[in-house]
Each structure stands twice: as C-alpha cells, then as structure tokens.
C-alpha cells in the first residue's frame, strides 16, 4: 500500500507497517524541544503529579529563547526554573545563555534534527524541522510533560496536502514570498489538522535555510506539520551539522501516495509579498502595496533570522541609511558570530540599525522592539495578529528580509528588486 512521507514516519514511530489518515497512533518520540515559556509549566506539572522523571536525558534539547536574556523578574523566574530542572535532570543538550538561541534555528544548526524522526516541541513553530524530512509538530505544556516523562504521545495521522512549487524564483523573490502566497491562497485554516508536503523544482534549488522558512509557517495555515523530502541539499547540511548520532532513516512519499488536494504555485510569476494585518493570509504582491508608511523594520526570528537572511538584508543596506528604526536579531550565537566575521555588523551599524542578542524578543511582543499604538512594523516574522508585537492598536506587515531591508531604507513598504540590479 502506498503512503506519504508523513504516514511512513508515523507508522514507523508506532511500530506499524501501515497507517491511514484518521488512525490514532502512539508515537515514540525521538527529540523534544524545550524553551522558557512552555517548559517551566510542564516541569511544575510533573513535580505536582509525582511523575517527575525524564524518559531520556539525551533526547531533550533545552534553550531559553522567548524572553532571554531575562526581560523582567517574572521571566527570570521562568529561566531559573528551566535552568534548575535542566541541571537536576542532567539534560545533555542544554543551551544556557551564551549558547542559547531561537530554538528553531538552534536545533538544526547544532545537529539535533534528523530525517525520519518524530520531533515535538512546546512551541507551534516546531513544524520548522519538517524541512529535514522529519515529522515535527508543536504541542502545549501538558503534552510536553507527558512526552518528557513517557517518551510517547498519541497522534491522529493527518491527511496530506501537496504543494507543488513550479518554475524558478526570480531575483528578489524568496521562500518567504512563496509561503505567504500559499497561505494567502488557502487561508489560515486551509490546512487545519493536515500535513503540508512541499515538492517541486523551485524547492530543489532552495537552501535548507530557505526551506525552513516554508515549513516554519505551516502552522500559519493551520497545518499539523510541514514536510519536505530528502535530497542532496538536505544531505549536505546534515553532513556539516550532525554531531553525536549521524545515522538516520530516509523516507520518501510513494509516487501513488494519496493526497487530499494538490496546489500548484508558479514561482516564476511570483512577486515579493507582504501579508497585511491581522492574519498571515493577508498576502499582497508588493506592486499593489508599495509606499505604505512604516515606523519600524524587524529582521529576525525563527522564520528569517538565519545567516542567509542577514546576508540578504545587509546586501541591500550596504552603503545606505535606514529611514525608520530597524532592529536586526541574529537567531543564534553561531549566526551572530558569523555575521560579525563576515562584516555584516558594520553594514547594519553604518546603516543605522540596532543589533540585538539572539532572542525571540519582539516577534511575539516580548521585548526589544515593542510597538506603540498606531505604529506599523514591516517584519520578517511569522504572525501579524492583533497585538502580536505590542499595542493592540499597532500593525504588523509580514515580509522577506529583502523587503524588510528595502522598506527600512525608504521608511515605507518598498520593492526590494530595485536595490538588486
């Protein structure tokens, strides 16, 4: 019987030969991501229920990221609870401040993500890791607690939707524009409970960084997971990043696997996109919206805070000045160091940007770039809900790093392509 890659991974995790959409399975968990907002509660629950055990201290990866470095006393308390627990349980892969980074950039970079595995995390953007041909999904604190203690979790096998990325991206158009277009087409609940499988020639040419931007936003269409098959680009990234355990299993969708729907996107025709408030599905081509005045530009997050993103932004800002406050947040210490070594910091400094330590920061309205009432921010992040980056009366416009950089220079939504001739 034919299966999709998602079905194959879930079947293997439950010790079954075959699963179908709708089946409820008990999956064995290969990796658990823990951060500072949802994990302290899970720890407290486990202690309160006297099931305070860890199924495998080598399969849990811990990093504070949302409010790190601690933004106030209460978040410092969260960090302390996380730190005490990680040390008490001798968590092998613990990344305290100095090594800490935005979780979904940090885990692949540090070699914790392998194809064929089942990965969960107390964060909705855990779907990012599906770029590595793994099943990966976000959960809440109680599921996190249960998985930490037992190493298992039940899942309903999702039906799969196929997204075929045809053609070739033009200059100035990036994977962020592709995913904003896909979400604009199907809506923020267009893939509710579904697996979003991405294939096609345009995808084949994307780096792992670019692919992660796509799977990262699967949740913004309501997806249970986003997933991309294994190829030479995946292999090369893994060869460079895997450390301890280098073996993994590669699953591919069968040619006659069943999909609930197939959506084709012609990437050749795509323009830079901007998602208007207050839903990620509010995508418009830049030619329809250039000129709208902004107050802030934000370049960072688990969606677009990787080195490739910073290079793209710096290439546009080089030799130019920003017209509005612009905040650049490298997602991990490694990215931070690399950006510094490559001279990108000089570019950002000279352009008039402020550089932050790795943090989720203002993406979720935590700190380091909060908006006042009436303000508008063009942002490389993933959500533009009401109040997402500050005042409930502020507005967030989602875009690629190139669009955010070009818009920073002009102080209004701008077409990045004119800076790329």
């Amino acid at each position, binding site marked *: 019987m034919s299966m999709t890659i998602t079905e194959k991974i879930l079947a293997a995790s439950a010790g079954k030969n075959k699963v179908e959409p709708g089946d409820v399975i008990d999956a064995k968990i290969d990796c658990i991501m823990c951060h500072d907002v949802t994990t302290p509660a899970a720890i407290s629950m486990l202690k309160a229920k006297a099931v305070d055990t860890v199924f495998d201290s080598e399969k849990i990866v811990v990093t504070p990221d949302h409010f790190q470095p601690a933004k106030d006393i209460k978040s410092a308390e969260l960090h302390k609870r996380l730190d005490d627990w990680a040390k008490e349980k001798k968590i092998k892969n613990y990344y305290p401040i100095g090594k800490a980074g935005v979780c979904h950039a940090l885990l692949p970079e540090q070699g914790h993500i392998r194809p064929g595995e089942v990965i969960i995390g107390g964060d909705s953007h855990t779907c990012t890791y599906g770029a590595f041909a793994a099943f990966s999904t976000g959960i809440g604190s109680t599921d996190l607690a249960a998985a930490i203690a037992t190493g298992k979790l039940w899942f309903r096998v999702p039906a799969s939707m196929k997204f075929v990325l045809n053609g070739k991206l033009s200059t100035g158009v990036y994977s962020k524009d592709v995913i904003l277009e896909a979400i604009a087409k199907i809506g923020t609940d267009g893939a509710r409970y579904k697996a979003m499988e991405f294939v096609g020639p345009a995808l084949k040419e994307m780096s792992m960084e670019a692919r992660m931007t796509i799977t990262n936003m699967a949740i913004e269409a309501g997806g249970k997971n986003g997933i991309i098959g294994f190829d030479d680009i995946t292999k090369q990234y893994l060869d460079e990043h895997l450390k301890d355990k280098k073996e993994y299993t590669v699953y591919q969708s069968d040619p006659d696997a069943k999909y609930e729907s197939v959506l084709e996107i012609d990437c050749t025709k795509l323009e830079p996109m901007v998602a208007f408030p207050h839903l990620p599905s509010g995508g418009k081509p830049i030619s329809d919206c250039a000129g709208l005045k902004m107050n802030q530009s934000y370049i960072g997050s688990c969606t677009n805070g990787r080195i490739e993103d910073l290079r793209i932004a710096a290439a546009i800002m080089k030799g130019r000045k920003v017209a509005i406050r612009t905040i650049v947040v490298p997602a991990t210490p490694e990215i931070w160091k690399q950006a510094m070594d490559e001279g990108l910091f000089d570019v950002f400094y000279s352009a008039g940007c402020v550089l932050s330590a790795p943090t989720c920061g203002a993406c*979720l309205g*935590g700190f380091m770039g909060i908006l006042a009432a009436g303000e508008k921010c063009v942002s490389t992040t993933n959500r533009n809900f009401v109040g997402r980056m500050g005042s409930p009366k502020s507005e967030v416009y989602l875009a690629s790093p190139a669009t955010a950089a070009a818009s920073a220079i002009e102080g209004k939504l701008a077409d990045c392509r004119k800076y790329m001739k």
Partner: protein
Amino acid sequence: MSIAHVYKRDHINTDEIIPARYLNTDNAAELATHCMEDLDTEFVKKCKPGDCIVAGDDFGCGSSREHAVWALQGAKVGAVIAKNFARIFYRNCINCGFYPVELANATEVIKDGDEIEIDYKKGIINNKTQKKEIAFKPLPDFAIEIIDDGGLLNNIKNKK
C-alpha cells in the same frame, strides 16, 4: 446558569486569548485577569463562573501556549463552543480537562446573552432562552475519559 458570550469572529487566536506580554507567568489566576484582553477588554468583568464563549471558525489558532486554556479556566469559563478549533488549542483543552464543543452553526443558533446548559456526554446544548435543544457530536470516549480525570497527566497516573 451559564450565559453565552458570542463573538461572531473567525480565527480568534491565542495571542488574543492571552497576549504574549503576560506569558512571563504560568499562574492561572494571574493570567485570568487578562483573558481575551486584546479582543474584548470587558470580557473578564462580564464573565461569570460557568459562562461560555461562542465563536466562529478556527478558534485558538496560532501559538501553542497552553496559557490560553489556563486563562480561560482561571476566568472560570465553563466551555468554548466554536464552529471548529485549531489543532493544538483543541488538544490543549482536552489535556487540561476543559471542554471544546464543536458546533457547525454555533454563532447562528446561540445569541449573545442566551442562557445555555451543556450535556457533554450526550452531546446536547439546551438553549433555555430560545427553548431549543441543539445536538453536537460529543468528544470520543478516550477524550471524555481524560477530561473526567481532570486532564492528561491525571489520566496517565490513573492508568499506571
């Protein structure tokens, strides 16, 4: 007595149910004081223990923060009745012993201020104001068992 607070909105997300600026605590009572704040600043004042929220499609989309469920529980909300729910929020509700009721025409058959009573196991909403019984598909047995146990961790403990 349970009063329905109807929001004819789709995609009410977890950022609206509990804004991230309050996620520096996981204390339900504290979170409850900000419940639904970015959608309706009056909600906490008008919600009485046991009252229900009624909404459109995709309730609870966005962030996986279980704080959204804790805020609702802390504000003593009895249940959320929505046309449908986002996946992670739905799972979080069951895991916390909180009822998500899926009802296709929720915002049409229940009006703001209606007095309702819900039989979760039979799958019946008694709309006392309109003197009508509305059927919904109850949760699967294993989910009801988790809710009856007061959440997933109690359920796991009971099974040991």
